[in-house]
């Protein structure tokens, strides 16, 4: 008894420690709120609206209840602590029910098998992917399988009735996941109760239920009838993305059937004792008997007990260590720090935490999205004209050109929004709404844009939709009240800012040509500092000194204490190349900038025409300058 208790206690400790760390890791390291925001990477994160309308839309379909529950629980990822809790409880329940199922079919060792699903789930969270709905469907199937095993009567007819009932109910709750339940029941019946005919009958019933309930009653397509909510569904498989880690979910689904089959076959060939124990019938009477056996007075000596207890502790420790080795190895192997950085940067951009964007972003400068975000953060910190070439700049990342297939519209929203390019912002918002669904962040921005454009009826629709979400309803109702009180929103700084920047003169265009856009914005409002700095950055990135110099007079519209460093460098480059003195209208080039430029040119001239040879000498001291970028079309290499 003591041994058994000690054994269980050890296992309880292992699980407690594991899931505590699981929770802390999710909360502190993965940060589920990053998955919630999605960053233009997660396209299948669900929306959830309060009220019966959404309930009635989602629930009355096969799999609707699980989908609704999943949609609701997923919203809790908004707060990392709550999201981590939801994901941990979900993983823990899968562990508990996997353990129960395996125990009932005689697989009690190694116990960590039941924890492997949690590790597989961790892989998906660690990779910033969203597969919660299908994983929740798996949990439902597992719970039903355990219920079946727990209450399955001996009588074949009652068994079949019970199976039929559970299958239909599960089909309504979790759609295609009922197949998984049926598979677990078949395995249980065929391999462990040795009732081949019942097992085969279950298989046939499962096939029929999908058709009858799904196709005939609910009129869903035959493919959906059998695959909805399963990771094999075309809805998941069709959206190929290298980072979606769907293989981990496949493994999650296949784990128990695979383990059970292997153990059963192993038992068949080796007469494994666990198997033998069960093929004689794992009846409750037997189990009660064995329970009594365990409760019977323990006649072993104290030495035996101590040795056994010691062994048990060693075994628990070994198991624990092994488990953590696997978990840690998996986490490290699958951890993609750059992907996490992309998510973090997007989140901090959204929350205007510019310094954090710089802190995180400077480590991943080969990523276009991150450099794009860095530039935006630099602008807001007033550093774009002086520090942009301290980072790896390229035209690709500068405005995430619309023609680049790989760039998601999501990442361009903030830049257009900050610039006041309202129509372009609206376009990428609308595209994002198509691609990522009705995400609250998108709806919120669309509402603001429509208010700025004085289209209050459209804005109200967006706000009313937002009012039905869990975490943005306060913001939306506040805006609705403001609109009621003052439809012009004259007291709203953000709206007024947009209105002061947005274009009035209309023209039709096929693509977003950034240069023209910046110039149009400056013509509309010469004080649009972001448009100015981005225009100058554009010319510098293009190496277009003429364009740059033609717009240098616009400096007068802004209160820079002195000409920003990169602008000085561009002016010096222009003067050097054209031998034309630019009219600086009383503005001065800093003596340090001048000396630095002279030193740079001295090194360049030292190497004559061999620019490549000069590169290695220049890179350390000058790769954060415009003239270095102009010469080599790379920048920000000083730390490499």
């Amino acid at each position, binding site marked *: 008894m003591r041994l058994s208790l000690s054994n269980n206690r050890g296992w309880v400790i292992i699980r407690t420690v594991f899931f505590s760390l699981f929770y802390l890791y999710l909360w502190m390291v993965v940060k589920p709120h990053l998955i919630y925001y999605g960053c233009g990477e997660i396209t299948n994160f669900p929306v959830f609206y309060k009220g019966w309308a959404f309930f009635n839309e989602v629930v009355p379909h096969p799999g609707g209840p699980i989908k609704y529950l999943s949609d609701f629980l997923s919203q809790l990822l908004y707060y990392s602590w709550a999201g981590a809790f939801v994901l941990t409880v979900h993983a823990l329940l899968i562990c508990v029910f996997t353990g129960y199922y395996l125990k009932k079919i005689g697989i009690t060792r190694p116990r960590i098998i039941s924890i492997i699903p949690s590790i597989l789930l961790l892989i998906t969270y660690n990779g910033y992917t969203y597969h919660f709905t299908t994983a929740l469907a798996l949990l439902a199937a597992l719970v039903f399988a355990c219920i079946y095993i727990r209450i399955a009567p001996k009588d074949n007819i009652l068994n079949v009735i019970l199976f039929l009932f559970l299958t239909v109910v599960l089909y309504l709750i979790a759609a295609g996941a009922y197949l998984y339940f049926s598979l677990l029941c078949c395995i249980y019946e065929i391999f462990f109760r040795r009732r081949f005919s019942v097992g085969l009958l279950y298989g046939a019933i499962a096939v029929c239920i999908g058709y009858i309930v799904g196709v005939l009653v609910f009129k869903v397509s035959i493919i959906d009838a059998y695959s909805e909510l399963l990771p094999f569904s075309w809805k998941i498989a069709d959206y190929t993305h290298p980072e979606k880690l769907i293989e981990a979910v496949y493994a999650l689904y296949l784990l128990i059937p695979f383990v059970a089959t292997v153990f059963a076959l192993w038992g068949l060939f080796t007469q494994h004792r666990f198997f033998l124990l069960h093929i004689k019938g794992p009846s409750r009477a037997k189990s009660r008997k064995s329970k009594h056996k365990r409760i019977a007075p323990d006649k072993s000596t104290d030495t035996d007990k101590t040795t056994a207890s010691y062994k048990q502790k060693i075994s628990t420790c070994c198991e624990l260590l092994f488990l953590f080795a696997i978990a840690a190895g998996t986490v490290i192997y699958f951890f993609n720090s750059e992907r996490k950085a992309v998510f973090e940067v997007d989140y901090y951009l959204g929350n205007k935490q510019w310094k954090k964007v710089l802190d995180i972003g400077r480590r991943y400068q080969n990523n276009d999205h991150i450099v794009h975000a860095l530039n935006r953060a630099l602008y807001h910190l007033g550093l774009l004209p002086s520090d942009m070439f301290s980072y790896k700049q390229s035209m690709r990342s500068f405005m995430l050109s619309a023609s680049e297939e790989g760039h998601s519209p999501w990442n361009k929203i903030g830049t257009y929004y900050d610039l006041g390019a309202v129509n372009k912002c609206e376009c990428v918002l609308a595209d994002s709404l198509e691609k990522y669904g009705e995400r609250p962040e998108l*709806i919120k921005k669309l509402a603001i844009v429509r208010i700025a454009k004085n289209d209050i009826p459209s804005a109200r629709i967006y706000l009313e939709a937002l009012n039905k979400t869990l975490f943005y309803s306060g913001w939306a109702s506040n805006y609705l009240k403001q609109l009621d009180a003052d439809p012009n929103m004259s007291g709203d700084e953000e709206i007024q800012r947009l209105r002061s920047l947005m274009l009035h003169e209309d023209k039709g265009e096929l693509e977003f040509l950034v240069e023209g856009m910046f110039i149009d914005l400056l013509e509309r409002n010469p004080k649009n500092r972001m448009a100015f700095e981005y225009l100058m950055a554009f010319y510098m990135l293009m190496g277009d000194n003429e364009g740059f110099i033609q717009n240098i007079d616009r400096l007068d519209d802004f209160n820079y204490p002195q000409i920003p460093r990169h602008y000085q460098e561009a002016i010096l480059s222009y003067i050097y190349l054209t031998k034309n003195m630019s009219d600086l209208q009383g503005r001065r080039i800093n003596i340090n900038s001048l000396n630095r430029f002279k030193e740079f040119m001295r090194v360049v001239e030292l190497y004559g025409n061999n620019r490549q040879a000069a590169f290695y000498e220049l890179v350390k001291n000058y790769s954060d300058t415009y003239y270095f970028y102009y010469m080599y079309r790379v920048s920000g290499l000083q730390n490499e």
Partner: protein
Amino acid sequence: MNRFHRYTIFLAVVLVVSSIGLLVYNPLRKKVTLEPCISIGRLARINPDYCGIVCPPNIAPLNFVVKEEGRELFVKIYSDNGKPIEIHCKKAKVIIPPKSWHSLLEANRGEKLYFEIFTRNAEGQWNSFDRIENEIADEDIDNFAMYRKMHPMHTLYYGNMGLYQRDLRNYSEKLILDRNYLGKGGCLNCHSFCGNSPDNMIIGIRSRNYGISTLYAKNGTARKIDTKFGYSSWHPSGKLVMYSVNNLPMFFHSARSEVRDTVDLDSYLAYCIVDSPAIKTAPALSRKEQLENWPVWSADGKYLYFCSAPMLWENTKQIPPDEYKDVRYNLVRISYDITGDEWGQEETVISSADTGHSVGMPRTSPDGQWLSLCVFDYGFFPTWQKNSDLYLIDLEQANQTGVFIPKKLNINSDESESWHCWSSNSRWLIFSSKRDHGVFTRLYISYIDENGNAYKPLLIPQKDPLFYESCLLAYNTPELIIKPVSPRCENLAKVIRSSQKISVDIPITMATPKAEATSTGEQSWQQRE
């Protein structure tokens, strides 16, 4: 009997008794005494605006929300005959019982329909508003409407877009086909029916996975034609479909409220004889220097009406061309003899030179008397033009006098009205409008009497009267049909996915080679809403 069972039985009994009690004695069902009552002296504000409308006798209950202050609400809906409907509720939503509604409307065809609204304030005082007077038309509207729902303003082909069939007698909406069935990215385009019947139906399909094609369903059996029909119109005989072939790139406005726009760079008309199937055109339908678009047959099939404008540019690669705002379409017609497959002379019906406007989306009423169309500033696509309005031409009168007089309907708003379709009895016009919800087009139905007078339109009702207030989808391309579409969604999808298709040859003598070249391949996708 153990304790658990006793408790269970007790709870069950309590539940049953209280349910019966609530049924028998519902405090809100008791007789409401409205007196003394203060008259407010104006109409109550209700949403949707169902005041002064003419409604079809077979329409679903017009649930609405009363936007007046009050703790309780009493609404009486009645007419000359039948039992009045009385609704007493504490919420502002007025949900009308369908059975009583349909009985009331059926018993009062052609009569008035009154809404009397009373609200009770915090002090317990009842206020009465002026009686809302609506009318019940004598003629039914077709029982079903098929339309497309999608997010407005997008340019990508990923998200929600589906063709749905709404039973106008109730609130049920059935999916006919959605973008999910087209694989990764795709678009469902215009659908058209022969004579308001889904027995002959076509749907334009663009799919990255399964190509560009047209679904053709006849008597419930669907097939795929290996070319895409643009804006199409069935000949009343059901033997041929006239359609446009267009090069319609989408472009953007930098400052206009409606961001998207499109231009008909190059186009012509062709027709498909569906039983062969063979595709043909005629010189008058495919002139190189003209843009031909929006074909529609007269009710007798003797005339083809379409929109035509001179092509103002030579370079179709510049998008948009500088002259895109100068293109104004005329409405023209050409006679046709189906027995000999012979075309007559083209004649101008409405000249843009006279009106100073462009025209688009002409539709003829099934009785042959009316032609409705959109009139707007420039180009061919009215949905994205704020000033697009619906006009009506009396064809019978025009045939007698030889003069076509477009009459602006009084159902227009300051926002865009477009996508319209006649009911099979020519008494109802369904159209899309942005009048109430900005960029979100909604569907309205308006009664047109025998003299061509249009009556205040009503928003297609939903069970939840606040449904549209937070609905992020736009409704467009409505078509009224007399019975439900018979092929199931999955069957249509199977046809799309299938490699079996009816191959057709585009005539090589086509006069507008650029448009012809774009009739295959991805570049030819009609990039518009």
